[in-house]
């Protein structure tokens, strides 16, 4: 092949690959632009702070924003400790043994399960098995055995567990071996090495993974479909707790209540509303809020990682 022909081929190869790479960016811009333009006119302060009215054809989406924040917060509170301990076991204890390989394969398979399957699992396991089981033990009628924020969060936690485990595992592996050796040589037990040397170094990576899994979980619809999300709820999932002795009443999120959620709200507005054309701007506005929320989370993950890793180098 002549030199000129080789150069031509090189030019074409670069051109094609660059075009493909850029087109992925174009897709993001198009989706964002589309939902922003179509939802723009409903995006007001009231849209973010008010509840839906008139059979959800008007008003805001505050309950859905509130529900999304609560359910994902509860989710990460469950997924983070489980995921971090699983990652610690796999990286620091199991090493490269047979058991570690089996666990790793299980985690990868878990990551590949379609989210609707998690939804059905959540209904079958958390709501019907665990929830009804608790009710039967208490014997005071239906309390746990129905769709609720608690079970939706638990289902989402199982869904994002692989993300947490993999990112926490990577953060642990990134801690230099020489630190572990130094600690072992000073007579540290394995747990002391993890607790005093490895974890302090790995936190930034672990937290980044946690935030990314929150943004993943926040956008999921299928897992919460049968496990706690409500079509419409005339109230926020809040209960008043009485503080003993003081007699004070403080409002608390009630994890046994149902909740409204952004992605599910988009879904019901688009498919179940009695006038889907009328609610179209609300659907787009809600989608825009949801996407913005995940974007903010992703960006804060990046910023957090950068800040913490700078601190670590200085520490």
């Amino acid at each position: 092949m002549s030199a000129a022909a080789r150069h031509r081929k090189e030019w074409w190869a670069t051109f094609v690959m660059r075009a493909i790479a850029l087109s992925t960016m174009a897709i993001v811009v198009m989706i964002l632009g589309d939902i922003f333009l179509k939802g723009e006119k409903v995006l007001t302060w009231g849209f973010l702070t008010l509840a839906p009215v008139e059979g959800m054809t008007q008003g805001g989406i505050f309950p859905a924003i509130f529900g999304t924040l609560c359910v994902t917060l509860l989710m990460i509170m469950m997924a983070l400790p489980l995921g971090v301990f699983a990652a610690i076991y796999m990286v620091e204890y199991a090493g490269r043994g047979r058991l570690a390989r089996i666990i790793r394969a299980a985690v990868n398979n878990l990551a590949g399960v379609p989210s609707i399957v998690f939804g059905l699992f959540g209904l079958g396991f958390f709501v019907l098995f665990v929830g009804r089981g608790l009710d039967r033990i208490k014997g005071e009628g239906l309390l746990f055995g129905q769709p609720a924020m608690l079970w939706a969060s638990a289902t989402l936690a199982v869904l994002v567990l692989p993300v947490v485990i993999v990112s926490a595992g990577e953060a642990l592996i990134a801690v230099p071996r020489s630190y572990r050796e130094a600690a072992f040589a000073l007579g540290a037990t394995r747990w002391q090495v993890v607790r005093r040397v490895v974890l302090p170094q790995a936190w930034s990576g672990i937290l980044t993974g946690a935030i990314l899994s929150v943004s993943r979980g926040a956008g999921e619809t299928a897992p919460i479909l049968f496990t706690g999300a409500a079509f419409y709820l005339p109230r926020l999932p809040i209960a008043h707790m009485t503080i003993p002795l003081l007699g004070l009443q403080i409002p608390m999120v009630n994890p046994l209540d149902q909740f409204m959620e952004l992605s599910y709200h988009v879904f019901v507005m688009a498919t179940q509303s009695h006038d889907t054309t009328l609610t179209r701007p609300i659907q787009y506005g809600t989608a825009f809020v949801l996407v913005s929320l995940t974007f903010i989370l992703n960006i804060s993950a990046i910023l957090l990682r950068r800040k913490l890793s700078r601190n670590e180098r200085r520490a």
Partner: protein
Amino acid sequence: MSEAVAPPKVSIRDLNFFYGATQALRGISLDVQEHKVTAVIGPSGCGKSTLIKTINRIAEIAGNVRIEGEVRLDGQSVLDKSVDVVDLRRRVGMVFQKPNPFPKSIYDNVTFGPRLHGVNKRSVLDEIAERALGQAALWKEVKDRLHQSAMELSGGQQQRLCIARVLAVDPEVILMDEPCSALDPSATARIEETIEDLSSDYTIVIVTHNMQQAARVSDSTAFLLEGKLVEFDETEKIFTNPSVPTTEEYITGRFG
């Protein structure tokens, strides 16, 4: 050895060491005398690091290793399954090839070991820090910035901090795995001075690929080649009149 009248601090007998299927040590036997400096020399990959890492059983954290033979500390078996490695490693400290202070303050580094072993009283930790840093000839340089990060120290200072970190747990034996290989000549000289000062109170085993260093700091020297102990004798004898021709070829620089 001619002057071996006192019982050895560390005694190694017929030691075989395998990483998976690869044999790193082949039938090593040698005695380390108390309060002396023993040097282990030999070309890269001869097993000298593995040999000293067997004494504090740090070699096995890599996993998939098999050890045969005997290592005794004060006559007590070290390799036995029932041995508490945490206690063993407190008694047998180690300084690594590359300075590896934790990314914490100087103070937190030097008090890391005592804290592991349950010392939490501030005044006691302060005393230990001053004593250990003093022994490692670092106290004067860092006493006004104990709470600054150890990462800001120079390479030589970091390595002396690592020595202080080991001294803080009051070991009986200190293993040093090429402690100067990452340092410049003047930093190396200061570490060697420190080793000399320490040798009156501690038993030191130092791995080095620098033969002048072995000649300068050690009382006896072991020469390893391909996992076998070629010769072990007083340092002076090894460097002036070795009994094995291979030793002479190595120390005169004909290979390795």
